[in-house]
């Protein structure tokens, strides 16, 4: 059995396929996979040469053999895939029947959403279809040369859910130590090991020498067998042709070090040949050198990992609608932008992890959770904590999350653990265990008992204690004053007896008492001293964050007080914002965003809200519009003024209801297939500054979703944006679909390649050249 040999015997993969094919006559622009059908003997001979050189594994010639990339081939990817496996089998039968055939899967060639357009489900389906075609005829699957961790995740899930085959994953790292989409080696190991694979490692991009820091980091972090397939040195471009200059002997020599350090499988990538494999075979030891890997609790996003080493890890609590009217309304009205802004603020304030809770009565929690997580992960690097009491929402969030999530939470009830632990295991998360069953036990020892129960039960699911963080539960001083210290005791006990990390929602302690921040930070200090690792707090509370900074200095986590000094010296230097003598109108005209809120409040003390809008804001805005049209000011200034006006409006609106004053709603989106939405966002900001309520559907919005949203929101106008001629096609499809569905609402279009002529051709009602033109148009129509 292959799985039994992995990590024990040192095994050898084959080397480069592309290099060999080029030697056999493959020309630039030809599709290598077509050789599987057109020149099977060439492919078989390459496999045979590798087997004769001593390779234990041969990989099928299927690197780009997916339905998307093979659209350009005259053959179906299915036939190319089957032919590839047939060739490999025949070569194996002839040379070494004990060798393994590995289904080779390279990157799909499309970037996944949110920054690209391929959905996670589409990536999953593509890889699943490849696996299903040949799963009974291969011995393992290799995801290789991967640059996107999200694609790797889709691939692992597809392979696991469609077969029982061993899975090997190798990613490609650049000389900056990251993949092209920004993942670092520790994050890669943490996420992929969590999902559960049979071997992981690196291939391609660099040579064995240059890959040293990356391979070392993987060996130090991974408990899973490690596979490495470097290139034959750094690629050298000669006349635009890629060449490799490291010899087989030198290659094998530099690989010895890694084998001595505990690599389990060695092979080669670009530029390596059967000679390289033979050289490796000569120098390799029979058995794998054992490694001792220290385990840590680690949570990751796609490009950042938080390792719990004893320092305080701050989890931002603000993305939770409980007790927050504004966020509640935003979630209900699907204005997710506000969630993202809340997330960005917490990241900027120094949070290490963000809690995400979207639980509201009447909301589709799993769908909302998926949407919010994807939007957050588009711009925020921090790992997320998925917070829900619904197993369905947790499962969905874990599936679509890019990274290794923190899951909040299970408790001591068997039923809850039985629902959540399989999800934690399958998707490889870290889970928070609350020390409660039917209620919160009063005494520390009882909470410890529940913690023990959780840790033991998790072990039966194969969840190690590094993947559990225990919540000892904060009680409210105003209601259970005597028991507050039981929480502190429980922290100590759990740490000592179980050796797991701990978490607390801190601010509960002060509920119902005056000057809550004082109690919060005092309790936090005591809790940290008692062993708290992960306080869930409001990172925008500066004093609370300062307390943590001070703690990290006093406990020597902030070495040489570097972080403390840089932050606190800044605090000392900050001068209070000088309030300028500008009027509200001048602030709007000059775009003074920082000062406008205070000024608006000030004028509202003496003037009526309507008067402020009609007598000050609107005239100032009109002046801005005129200045822009006469080239006195330009785009950045126009937007700056628009954003300033928006802030002023927000202050006015908070004092009385001006809903009757808001115009619209108008609905906007960037059409299907188009991800360039900066233009649409400019128009949106400017329209909002003129008091329009804008429903923003986002970018790359599928035709049917626009139609569905039209029915749901009943807008007064629909604005569509597209950047390229190729996506204007989808603009027409969207307009056609809206019309076919009986939409009578006027549609206006804009974007780089659009003209009045194109707008007429595709059936739009109006065209506008830029943001100001959109304002003029809407003002004249609505």
């Amino acid at each position, binding site marked *: 059995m292959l799985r039994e040999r992995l990590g024990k015997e040192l095994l050898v993969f084959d080397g480069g396929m592309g290099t060999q094919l080029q030697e056999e006559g493959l*020309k*630039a*622009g030809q599709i290598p996979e077509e050789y599987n059908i057109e020149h099977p003997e060439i492919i078989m001979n390459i496999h045979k040469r590798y087997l004769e050189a001593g390779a234990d594994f041969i990989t099928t010639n299927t690197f780009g053999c997916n339905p998307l990339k093979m659209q*350009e081939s005259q053959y179906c990817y299915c036939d190319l895939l089957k032919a590839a496996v047939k060739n490999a089998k025949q070569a194996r039968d002839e040379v070494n029947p004990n060798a393994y055939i590995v289904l080779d899967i*390279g*990157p799909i*060639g*499309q*970037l996944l959403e949110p*920054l*690209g*357009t*391929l959905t996670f489900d589409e990536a999953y389906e593509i890889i699943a279809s490849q696996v299903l075609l040949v799963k009974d005829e291969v011995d393992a699957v290799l995801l290789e*040369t991967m*640059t996107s961790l999200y694609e790797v995740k889709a691939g692992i899930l597809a392979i696991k859910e469609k077969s029982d085959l061993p899975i090997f994953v190798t990613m490609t790292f*650049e000389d*900056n130590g990251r993949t*092209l*989409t*920004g993942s670092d080696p520790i994050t890669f190991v943490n996420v992929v090991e969590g999902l559960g694979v049979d071997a992981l490692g690196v291939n*391609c991009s660099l040579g064995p020498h240059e890959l040293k820091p990356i391979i070392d980091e993987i060996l130090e972090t991974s408990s899973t067998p490690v596979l490495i397939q470097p290139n034959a040195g750094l690629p050298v*471009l000669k*006349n*635009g*042709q890629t060449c490799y200059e490291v010899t087989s002997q030198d290659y094998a020599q530099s690989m010895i070090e890694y084998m001595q350090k505990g690599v389990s499988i060695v092979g080669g990538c670009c530029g390596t040949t059967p000679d390289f494999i033979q050289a490796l075979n000569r120098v390799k030891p029979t058995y794998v050198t054992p490694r001792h890997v220290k385990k840590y609790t680690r949570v990751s996003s796609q490009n950042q990992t938080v390792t719990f080493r004893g320092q305080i890890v701050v989890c931002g609590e603000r993305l939770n609608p409980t007790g927050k009217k504004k966020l509640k309304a935003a979630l209900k009205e699907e204005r997710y*932008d506000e969630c*993202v*802004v809340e997330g*960005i*603020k917490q990241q900027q304030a120094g949070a290490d992890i963000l809690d995400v809770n979207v639980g509201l009565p009447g909301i589709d929690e799993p769908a909302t959770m998926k949407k919010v997580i994807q939007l957050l992960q*588009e*711009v*925020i690097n921090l790992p997320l904590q998925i917070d829900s009491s619904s197993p369905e929402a947790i499962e969905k969030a874990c599936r679509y999350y890019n990274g290794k999530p923190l899951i909040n939470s299970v408790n001591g009830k068997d039923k809850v653990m039985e629902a959540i632990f399989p999800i934690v295991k399958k998707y490889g998360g870290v889970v928070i265990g609350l020390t409660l069953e039917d209620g919160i036990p009063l005494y520390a020892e009882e909470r410890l008992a529940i913690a023990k129960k959780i840790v033991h039960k998790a072990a039966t699911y194969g969840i190690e204690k590094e993947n559990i963080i225990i919540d000892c539960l904060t009680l409210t001083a105003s209601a259970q004053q005597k028991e507050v210290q039981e929480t502190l005791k429980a922290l100590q006990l759990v740490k000592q007896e179980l050796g797991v990390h701990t978490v607390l929602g801190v601010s509960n302690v002060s509920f119902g008492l005056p000057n809550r921040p004082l109690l919060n930070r005092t309790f936090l200090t005591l809790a940290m001293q008692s062993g708290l690792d992960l306080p869930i707090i409001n990172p925008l509370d500066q004093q609370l964050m300062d307390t943590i900074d001070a703690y990290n200095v006093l406990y020597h986590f902030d070495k040489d007080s570097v972080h403390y000094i840089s932050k606190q010296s800044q605090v000392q230097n900050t001068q209070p914002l000088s309030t300028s003598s500008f009027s509200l109108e001048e602030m709007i005209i000059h*775009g003074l965003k920082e000062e406008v809120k205070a000024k608006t409040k000030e004028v509202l003390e003496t003037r009526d809200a309507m008067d402020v809008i009609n007598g000050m804001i609107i005239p100032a805005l009109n002046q801005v519009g005129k200045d822009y049209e006469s*080239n006195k*000011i*330009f*785009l*950045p*200034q126009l*937007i*700056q003024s*628009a*954003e300033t006006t928006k802030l002023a409006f927000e202050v006015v609106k908070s004092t009385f209801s001006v809903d009757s004053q808001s115009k619209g709603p108008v609905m906007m989106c960037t059409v*299907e*297939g*188009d*991800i*360039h*939405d*900066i233009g649409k*966002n*400019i128009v949106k*900001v400017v329209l909002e500054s003129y008091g329009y309520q804008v429903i923003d559907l986002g970018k790359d919005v599928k035709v049917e979703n626009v139609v569905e949203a039209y029915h749901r929101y009943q807008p007064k106008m629909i604005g569509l944006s597209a*950047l*390229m*001629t*190729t*996506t204007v096609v*989808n603009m027409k499809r969207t307009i056609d679909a809206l019309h076919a569905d009986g939409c009578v609402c006027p549609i206006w279009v804009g974007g780089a390649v659009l003209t009045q002529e194109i707008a007429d051709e595709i059936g739009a009602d109006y065209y506008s050249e830029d943001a100001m033109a959109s304002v003029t148009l809407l003002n004249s129509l609505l």
Partner: protein
Amino acid sequence: MNKRAILQYLQYYSDVDEKTENLIDECILEVKQLAQFKAIYQKFSLTHQPLKIQELDLLCESQDLEFYFKDCQECFVIACTLGIQIDRQTKLYEHIDMTKAVVFDAVSSRYLEECCDAYEDTLNLGIHTFRFAPGYGDLPLALNQPLSRVLQIDKKIGVSISQGGLFVPMKSMLGIIGLGSQVEKSCLSCVRKENCVLRKGGQRCYVRD
């Protein structure tokens, strides 16, 4: 970096105000720090009438290119990118500071051009033409697909072309340079001279019109 060019992207027709200039400086620093410029090239032979990339048997159906490449026997295809972190940061600013997002976007566009120019300079191309990107003038956008595949831009520099024909990351480009012929860089030798927004506004990209 050439700030005048950045201001052109931002549709400035006169002097810049201090606030915007500071914002541009701030964005230049950030873009330089965040960008991961990567580039790749390959050299091909050309045949004429019709204009073809010989090794790929690829027809370049473009009168503009026929004209500019008429004396060129070879060409370089260059693809380059600033990497995905620039897209990510632009999006972040779109959420919290639209003004900065717009400036950041313009600075990134300019930075890509300048990085690509600098890269071009390292290739010792000898006498050569401008860089022509598919989609520019009458050079079909569809050329991006076969050229990208040959250069393996997804594997080598992490750029993909979406089903809608867009490069991801957004700040990426692919251009063709003809060798052996020179067209002096001037506005009148530009294929966009008839419909250039900047020209209409009285601006010139080059010293010579």
